[in-house]
């Protein structure tokens, strides 16, 4: 590892960031993170995090933060268990359009009995939820591809608004749901918003197989080589080629300074996610300081910040329309 920029993200779900839609608090943290040079903010889901259960809709809050900022990535958690794939895909595609390609998605399941009770469902084994999540992530990717780049041609002379051959049905039928497509939203600027998942959850393999970013929990006291081993293991389990994924270590609150320095120096990770804590700027300063003089990102999108390619469109077959 270490061939890429060491990536630093700030997680905004910390209880000290007021969690009942104090927009100003979130916005201040995001602006501070952007000014400090962080690569993204992560709006986690209080509805899913154990022990809390208060919080605005993360994708919508991320849209608000995207509007307040201009460079930093905005990653929103969205749970798939009780969500509709089409709505998840169009919501995140909209976030990517609104932010000019700065959007990311942290895929979550909603495994607790308390969450099930909000949706009239019986709790299900986590493994089953992750399998279903894998299905959803796969289909969401197809929906993002269902409009080819440049499908909208707007030829006023001939009256052709769209090249219909470049709009595709996805025609998916699986155990949990079926969906015909195409999406209601054109392909996002990044092709696909960045897809991230916490790789430690048992059963998450179904999702890591589709993810761009694997997040692993990091014990700040752990030696660098142990973290590197765990990172390698996460990549191996995902089945993804190493160069196509980034592994980020998620640090618990407190005591991040030394840990980040050590991890960055050991080259064990592609980056870290630090919790905002009481003082987001201090949390970031430590993390950013330890990445040294980072090369500037290759471009303004979150993918470019992460050094990830823009994915090819699986449906791109039609040659460009004749004018």
């Amino acid at each position: 590892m270490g061939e890429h920029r060491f990536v630093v993200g700030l997680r905004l779900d910390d209880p000290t960031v007021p969690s009942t839609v104090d927009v100003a608090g979130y916005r201040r943290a995001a602006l501070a993170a952007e000014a400090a040079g962080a690569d993204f903010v992560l709006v986690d889901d209080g509805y899913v995090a154990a022990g809390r259960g208060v919080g605005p809709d993360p994708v919508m809050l991320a849209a608000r933060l995207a509007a307040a900022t201009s460079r930093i990535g905005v990653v929103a958690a969205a749970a798939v268990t009780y969500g509709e794939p089409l709505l998840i895909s169009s919501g995140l595609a909209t976030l990517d359009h609104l932010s000019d390609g700065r959007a990311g998605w942290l895929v979550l399941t909603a495994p607790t009995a308390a969450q099930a009770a909000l949706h009239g469902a019986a709790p299900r084994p986590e493994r089953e939820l992750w399998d279903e999540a894998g299905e959803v992530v796969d289909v969401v990717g197809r929906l993002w591809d269902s409009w080819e780049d440049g499908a909208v041609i707007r030829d006023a002379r001939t009256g052709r608004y769209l090249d219909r051959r470049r709009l595709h049905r996805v025609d998916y039928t699986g155990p949990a749901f079926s969906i015909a497509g195409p999406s209601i939203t054109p392909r996002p600027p990044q092709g696909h918003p960045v897809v991230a998942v916490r790789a430690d959850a048992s059963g998450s393999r179904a999702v890591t197989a589709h993810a761009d970013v694997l997040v692993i929990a990091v014990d700040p006291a752990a030696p660098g080589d142990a973290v590197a081993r765990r990172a390698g293991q996460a990549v191996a389990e995902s089945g993804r080629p190493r160069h196509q994924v980034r592994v980020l270590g998620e640090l618990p609150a407190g005591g991040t300074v030394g840990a980040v320095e050590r991890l960055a120096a050991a080259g064990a990770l592609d980056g870290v996610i630090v919790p905002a804590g009481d003082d987001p700027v201090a949390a970031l300063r430590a993390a950013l300081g330890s990445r040294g003089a980072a090369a500037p990102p290759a471009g303004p999108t979150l993918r470019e910040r992460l050094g990830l390619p823009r994915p090819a469109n699986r449906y791109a077959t039609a040659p460009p329309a004749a004018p």
Partner: protein
Amino acid sequence: MSGRQLHLALSAGVGGVHQGAWRRPDSRTEQWGTPELVIALAQETEAAKFDAFFLSDISAPNRALTRVQAPYLYFEPLTAAVAIARATSHIGVIATASTTFHEPYNLARQVATLDHLSGGRAGWNAVTSSVGEQNFGRRPWPDHAGRYERAAEFLDVVEQLWDSWEQDAVRHDRAAGVFADIDKIHPIDHAGTHFAVAGPLNVRRTPQGRPVIVQAGSSPAGRDLAARHASMVFTAQRELAEAQQFYRDLKSRARGHGRPDTDVAILPGVSPIIGDSAADAEEIRESLLDLVDQPTATARLADQLGGIDLSDIGFNEPIPVERLPAAGDIERRRSRFQIFADLAREERWTVRQLVGLEVASYGHWRLVGTAEQVAAELERWFLARGADGFVLMPPYQGALTRFYQWVVPLLQDRGIFRREYEGRTLRDHLGVSYPANRWAS
């Protein structure tokens, strides 16, 4: 200002509801589908002091149609609404979301989030949807009655969730370490036919108490839903007499549910073509029609008429009415079907005439004339209680600009439309009351 005031909302399509709109030279079509254009439209609409900016939802694009016609809107409405709220300060922001395809807990949370992020300007257009089932395959698609049954329980659950935090539940007591008074946060323990939802919501009570519920769907089942829950109704009405009948019916249903009828604002859609002169307006109308692809337009009409075959009928011939299904057999847009079927049956409209109505405004009221004529007609409907206001559905971009620059000042001069915002929330603009929390003692 005094007296009853007109309420205006803009239905924000990408750039005009007329099928031919995008082909006009002034259409800005290259920008359609960019967030910048939608945001600029919202800002122009706020400058015109409208009550609300309205985002519809399409659930599924029509591939055959989009070849020749711009999709109405590209974005997921709730997420787009956040960007619009941030770029404006007074205007209400209404996002459409389907009770057939969403989950009540998630949706209650999303709309509450919008109300917080907008400082009390959120509205939710609760529709039952007439298309899109192919994209929501977790459950079987209910029929017209079944969709409204689900909608009724859906709205009941959402309102309970919005009430689940009392106004003063959050204490912010730093010294005592008490964030919220949990005795004032209530589970809802709803167990019904369609939903079982424990609650409480994970978002505190919103600035408007409850965000505004808007309803669009005009069959009797739709009206009843509106009468119980909606503060604003969006409807398609073509004639004043029919509009008055709808208006009286809905207001009396609202009273029947124990609500003052001033708590439900009724806004028919209107699609005005505004000319320098009456002749100029006619000319614009004709030129728009010339830009429409005829086969696609006829297919749209056939669809609106319940999917009947029109392939053997000439463009200038009337509709063979014996082919029309009964309204009760229409499972999709039943109330809209009624508008087209009535014109075919009672007024013997030709394919050409009906296609003209469909491509211009989807069956909504069309107005063609000078700014003075348009303002006078709107006032006439308003004073005759055919409407409390209108949802403006501009046929093309230029019509919108003319409405703002020419028609709005005339309405203001007539003393029926605000010159400045007087309140901060969408409820304030609509003049509807703030609901009491069912838990408040």
